[in-house]
């Protein structure tokens, strides 16, 4: 997030898109709801499902799946045409405005209505509402990123925010909501193929030299590595021989699971480190038991870049170890000694190598976490990004055109499928499904469907329905819901026994490598 969670209550207008906030980020959604109910903020929700937050919204826009660039361009078209944009900000802080103006020219509300299914007047109203805000906040989640055009979607939202001068101010910003507790930290700490910690590029000679010196090694690779979505095909082709998986369960979370399983089975050697047996550990050659969050010391970085302490409350079961200790032992046995006295000692090392964490110590975050960047010991941290300047100087507007999703509904597969989570379960369910109460509330997979579609396919509430895509099929229960809109069904991806990701499309965004989980085409039939 460019801004903080607390900042949401300072916004005049909040635009939420691709985020079912009340279910996926419940506590954060309370900030949105309070802003609307008690602080007079206006709320625009853009989502293909009639999610709970839509009930709080002044406007709910319902786009066809995978048409985000089109409605965002449409809003910018209106804002530029009606002269509602922030000229000072555009002039002083950005470049490329003419290119943006040229590309959004053709996105008239009528044209956008054709693509997105959102009425032209609603586009105009939403554009005026957002542009009229002193401080407008944009919140988004996987509904924006998990598309073949995910990177374009994210950039387009940033453009919309810059165009209205909403960057770098209290109550504004562009705010991705991270789905997992430490996604932010995994990225910050170099858990990416192209960067070391703090986003220092692996193909930058200075950065390579810095790490070589600190780690006492030579010959670090300066070649950008493989993304997870590239590793699997390489495993399939036999080019990738081994995989060391720490605490992940790609065999429920990956798109096109049938294919993913084949890829992973083709590895020469698979090591999986986890707290439970999972669909993925079952394929491993060696399984290593690790400690869970309640059993270790360390830090997580939350979605607002706040580095917070994790503390040990209980002992790990049996012989389970901290993940870092396991990795260090493997390194040592491979001839590169790695050992640390504590997680704090690791933090001291990483903060020296990571400018944005440079001023953070366990002592400083004992009571309250600090937002990075925090370069020095006396720096207070940075709750709001980009208030003076963008890291690259000026913010750049790119010309972005709408590209349809990789798979569209057709005669054979006439229904759109989108996937996501429910409030009572988490990710692949390995943790939440151990709590009976949560299972009682959300016992298994289901297909959320509008009553109209149900009638069309002869389905009653509670029926077993067979859902089939070009990649696979699953059976789950029909769940009538007024969240669903005709022509689109929703399936949660938590449940391995009816895994939504047997159906989803592995088509990737060319830049981020994120698969298009949010759109694919399926057909429905009543199961015998």
């Amino acid at each position: 997030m460019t801004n903080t969670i607390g900042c949401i209550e300072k916004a005049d207008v909040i635009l939420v898109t691709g985020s079912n906030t009340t279910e996926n980020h419940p506590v954060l959604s309370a900030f949105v709801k309070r802003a609307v109910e008690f602080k007079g903020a206006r709320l625009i929700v853009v989502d293909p499902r009639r999610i709970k937050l839509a009930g709080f919204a002044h406007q709910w826009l319902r786009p066809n799946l995978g048409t985000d660039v089109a409605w965002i361009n449409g809003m910018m078209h209106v804002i530029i045409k009606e002269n509602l944009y922030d000229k000072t900000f555009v002039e002083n802080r950005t470049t490329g405005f003419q290119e943006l103006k040229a590309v959004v020219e053709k996105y008239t509300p009528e044209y956008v209505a054709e693509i997105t299914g959102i009425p032209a007047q609603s586009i105009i109203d939403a554009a005026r509402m957002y542009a009229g805000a002193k401080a407008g906040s944009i919140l988004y989640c996987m509904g924006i990123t998990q598309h073949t055009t995910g990177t374009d979607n994210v950039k387009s939202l940033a453009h919309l925010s810059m165009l209205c001068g909403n960057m770098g101010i209290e109550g504004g910003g562009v705010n991705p909501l991270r789905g997992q507790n430490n996604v932010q930290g995994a990225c910050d700490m170099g858990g990416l193929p192209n960067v070391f910690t703090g986003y220092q590029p692996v193909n930058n000679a200075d950065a390579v030299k810095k790490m070589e010196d600190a780690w006492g090694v030579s010959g670090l690779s300066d070649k950008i590595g493989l993304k997870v979505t590239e590793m699997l095909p390489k495993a399939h082709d036999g080019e990738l021989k081994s995989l060391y998986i720490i605490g992940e369960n790609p065999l429920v979370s990956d798109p096109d699971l049938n294919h993913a399983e084949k890829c992973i089975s083709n590895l020469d050697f698979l090591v999986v480190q986890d707290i439970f047996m999972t669909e993925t550990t079952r394929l491993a050659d060696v399984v290593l038991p690790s400690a869970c969050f309640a059993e270790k010391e360390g830090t997580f970085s939350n979605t607002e870049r706040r580095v917070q302490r994790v503390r040990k409350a209980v002992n790990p079961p049996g012989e389970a170890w901290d993940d870092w200790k396991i990795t260090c032992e493997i390194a040592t046995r491979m001839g590169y000694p790695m050992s640390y006295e504590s997680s704090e000692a690791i933090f001291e090392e990483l903060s020296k190598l990571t400018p944005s964490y440079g001023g953070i110590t366990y002592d400083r975050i004992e009571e309250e976490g600090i937002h990075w960047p925090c370069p020095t010991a006396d720096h207070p941290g940075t709750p709001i990004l980009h208030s003076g300047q963008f890291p690259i100087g000026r913010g750049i507007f790119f010309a972005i055109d709408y590209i349809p999703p990789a798979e569209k509904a057709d005669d054979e597969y006439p229904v759109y499928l989108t996937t996501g989570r429910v409030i009572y379960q988490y990710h692949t369910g390995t943790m939440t499904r151990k709590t009976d109460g949560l299972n009682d509330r959300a016992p298994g997979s289901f297909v959320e469907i509008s009553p109209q579609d149900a009638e069309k396919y002869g389905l009653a509430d509670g029926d077993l329905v067979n859902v089939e895509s070009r990649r696979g099929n699953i059976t789950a229960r029909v769940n009538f819901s007024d969240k669903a809109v005709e022509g689109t069904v929703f399936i949660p991806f938590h449940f391995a026994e009816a895994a939504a990701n047997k159906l989803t499309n592995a088509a990737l965004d060319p830049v981020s490598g994120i698969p298009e989980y949010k759109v694919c085409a399926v057909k429905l039939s009543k199961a015998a």
Partner: protein
Amino acid sequence: MDAQNIIIINGNEFSFEPGETILQVARRNDIDIPTLCHLKGATPTGECRICVVEVEGARTLMASCVTPASNGMVVRTESQKVIEARRLIIQLMLASGNHNCAVRGSDDKDWTQFQLSVQQEDNSSELCPVWGDCRLQDLAYRYQVSGERFPKTETLFPMETVNPFIVRDFSRCIRCGRCVQACNEVQVNKAINFGYRGASTKIVAAGDRPLKDSDCVFCGECVQVCPVGALVEKNARYEVRPWETKKVRTTCSYCGVGCQLHLHVKDDKVVKVTGVEDVAPNYGSLCVKGRFGFDFVNSSERLTTPLIKENGEFRKASWDEALDLVAKRFGEIKKAHGGDAMGVLTSARVTNEENYIANKFTRAVLKTNNIDHCARL
């Protein structure tokens, strides 16, 4: 200091900001005024009146949580009149339901009678589940009152136990309304409100349905704010006494909000979770996963030893054996095919320190940049 805005509390002068209540000024200056219904961050309701103070010139005692401070106001927070009023309020509350903790009465005969009637209505002979951890009990002790002055009123509504997380015991509800505010003004889930009128007032979900059939999403905010034993976590009820547990503050391991929570630990087990009040990002709030989804920690299905697969079956192994095998195989593959034939998936679940170590291992030991995590999936 603006000479205009001075209030005198218990003989001392304090400055205040326009709009501040007497309670706020007092709290800021460490003057202890008891409250029950007052909930920080929500609109004050003035429901319970335990916070009354004496204001010079006023004909009645004033509820300090709703009365704004004004210039020259002279306030006494523990005068005889105040104490008497509070004692009366406490006595009425104690008499209003099954407050069968030891403060209910000291007369042996009455106590026995009382316990018997509770048992009948409660189907339980136990003391109140929050005995020793109750704001009403604290106040009864502080003001040395027992509940015997007024006859006990009948319990009108049966206990609700039909959801997996929260037990609602209406017989112990003092109708302070904190839960209503927590649900409507803090979490804005709008699941519960005051229902019925007068003596039969009850906190209800729409249509007086059980929580499981309402808009309730089991965030548990209401449980955390309930000052008495009317709302209690089902899994902790009669299992967990506050003095038997130690509280460890940490960060939620589910979504990216990073809520601050207290793990309550008893016998090396997490038995209850509460939100940490007054600190960002969540200021005490949690969701159902953070508050109730901790069973996995102590699950019997946890992996407890390294496992090595042999002929398609896993067998237990020692750390030395497993680690040696991994190091040997990784070494062989690296030698034969180079580091770029190897990959590491680190995790959005593990700590920053552990991600850093995975990054260092991949780059410095395997000599490849093939590292990613599944967060985008």
